[in-house]
């Protein structure tokens, strides 16, 4: 009993250490900047109002949600289908193709930055949502990860579904996807967060401020100084809080699906 309480206390302490920067960010975001710089305590919602009103963070938030949402959905759909094909079908060149998909994991994203930029420039897709979304939708890691997971699902389930009259797409949609749901949701969350945090590509691909994502907008805050040579930290912290909240929310929503394994009872 005593031991358990000690463990719980230790876990709480470690958790607080990890959380402290986030908690400090939120704490600071509610202070007025005068109070922050003079060391007084004075609370306000003005920082949020300024971020959303004067600096257009509502727009950035919308852009981030749209871009990250679209990237997550499209790349999940693509990689689930690719994973199913690689896991279940043998076709000429299949191994080579899979090797190519895995090989993309070894290319640092910064190397493709300039080629991607030039390609999209030629296609006239810079400064557009398509330009933000398209380069991110093929994800070799997602395809690889999901393939491994699908290979772990007994093939007899596919075969049973084929015998029941399913087409390959039906097998994927009605059997594989529901069973692989924990893996697919985890991967979805991962893709969403990765795209949400993506900074370099949105910075390069977009010049017009209506298309800024939160990360780009946040970086701008450092440069648009209201005063001379001084940063409005509470404002930046309010914008940061706006940036991290949706991800936290997404995690809470998806989290309960992550742990559940549901293959039990399928085969003996």
């Amino acid at each position, binding site marked *: 009993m005593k031991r358990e309480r000690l463990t719980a206390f230790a876990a709480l302490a470690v958790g607080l250490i990890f959380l402290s920067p986030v908690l400090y960010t939120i704490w600071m975001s509610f202070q007025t900047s005068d109070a922050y710089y003079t060391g007084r305590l004075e609370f306000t919602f003005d920082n949020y109002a300024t971020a959303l009103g004067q600096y257009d963070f509502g727009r950035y938030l919308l852009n981030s949600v749209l871009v990250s949402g679209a990237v997550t959905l499209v790349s999940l759909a693509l990689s689930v289908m690719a994973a199913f094909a690689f896991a279940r079908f043998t076709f000429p060149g299949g191994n080579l193709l899979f090797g190519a998909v895995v090989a993309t994991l070894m290319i640092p994203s910064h190397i493709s930055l300039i080629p991607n930029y030039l390609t999209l420039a030629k296609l006239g897709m810079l400064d557009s949502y398509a330009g933000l979304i398209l380069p991110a939708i093929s994800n070799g890691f997602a395809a690889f990860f999901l393939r491994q997971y699908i290979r772990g699902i007994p093939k007899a389930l596919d075969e049973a579904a084929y015998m029941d009259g399913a087409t390959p797409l039906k097998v994927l949609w009605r059997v594989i996807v529901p069973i692989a749901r924990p893996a697919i949701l985890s991967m979805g969350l991962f893709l969403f967060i990765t795209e949400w945090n993506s900074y370099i590509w949105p910075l390069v691909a977009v010049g017009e401020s209506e298309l800024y994502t939160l990360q780009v907008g946040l970086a701008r805050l450092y440069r648009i100084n209201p005063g001379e040579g001084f940063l409005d930290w509470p404002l930046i912290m309010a914008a940061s809080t706006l940036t991290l909240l949706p991800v936290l929310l997404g995690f809470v929503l998806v989290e309960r699906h992550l742990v559940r394994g549901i293959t039990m009872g399928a*085969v003996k």
Partner: protein
Amino acid sequence: MTGIALRDIRKSYPNGPQVLHGVSLDIRPGEFVVVVGPSGCGKSTLLRLIAGLETTAEGEIEIGGQPAGHLAPQDRDIAMIFQNYALYPHMSVRENIAFGLELRGMPRAERRARAEEVAAILQLSPYLDRKPKALSGGQRQRVAMGRAMARKAGVFLMDEPLSNLDNALRVAMRTEIKELHRRLGATIIYVTHDQTEALSLADRIAVMKGGHLQQFATPDEIYDRPANMFVASFLGQPGINFVKAEQLPDTRGVVGLTAGLRPEALMVHADRPEGASIEGKVILTEMSGAELIVHCETTVGRLVVASQRRTLTALPERIWIGYDLDEALWFDTTSGHRVQPPAESRSM
């Protein structure tokens, strides 16, 4: 009801050995055929070829008189029950049973009714809303059967459906499968390595070994007139005894033949009996209910005798094994094929 014809089916895997060397079977509509053989004899591959889960390399498959080799599994009007059941883990029993109907576009109300009807037959009604993980092994087995039955397919394929069950359940399910066959009247092709299942279930048994069909006949025919020594030894428990004719005292002069003596055709005697007999020593005995299985070391090698337990009292160490060559099966020692009994044995 659908018949199935297989003509000269050959199958080999890429970079692997050939698993089927020209198998032909003519399965009549409504027939219960058991394909039996040791592991690796190609029986499961044969079943998967009929299902369409493997593609034919060579040969023809006809289902209901129509060539079917080119058809995808979903177009063959075949239901299959898998060894490990392969139930959809994310669906309830009801959904598992009705999934095939849904895929074939049956309206919701109708497929619900059908699923409930099937569940009632299989005594699954109380479990319709459970997921497979909340069922026992026997119940899962039944769901797998229900899934196949709901579709009223013309042909049922069963790939060792009972091998994951414990013995009591296996015997009970065996009876149920036989009753089910009578009720449905569908053609059933049943794969097993268990000779007891084969003998008790089949209208006709196909015995396979090493990718070759050894014999395709009724259980009686297979047991009483096996095509060769392999079939004779594979069916029957305990296994048949083989004795070379040259070693038997009363068949001197017969060369190149082997006598097959079923354990139940032999008798253990404490004293030398009237007729033909071999002297031997008891090595060990096994009780199996009504019978006592006696393993003996004799002048012609190890012999196994199945005796009515009631007729036996305490066995002395030295015993005599009485036999009747009229009941022996005769095989060519080199080829293993069954042959007519030699004249010398009949005269005895």
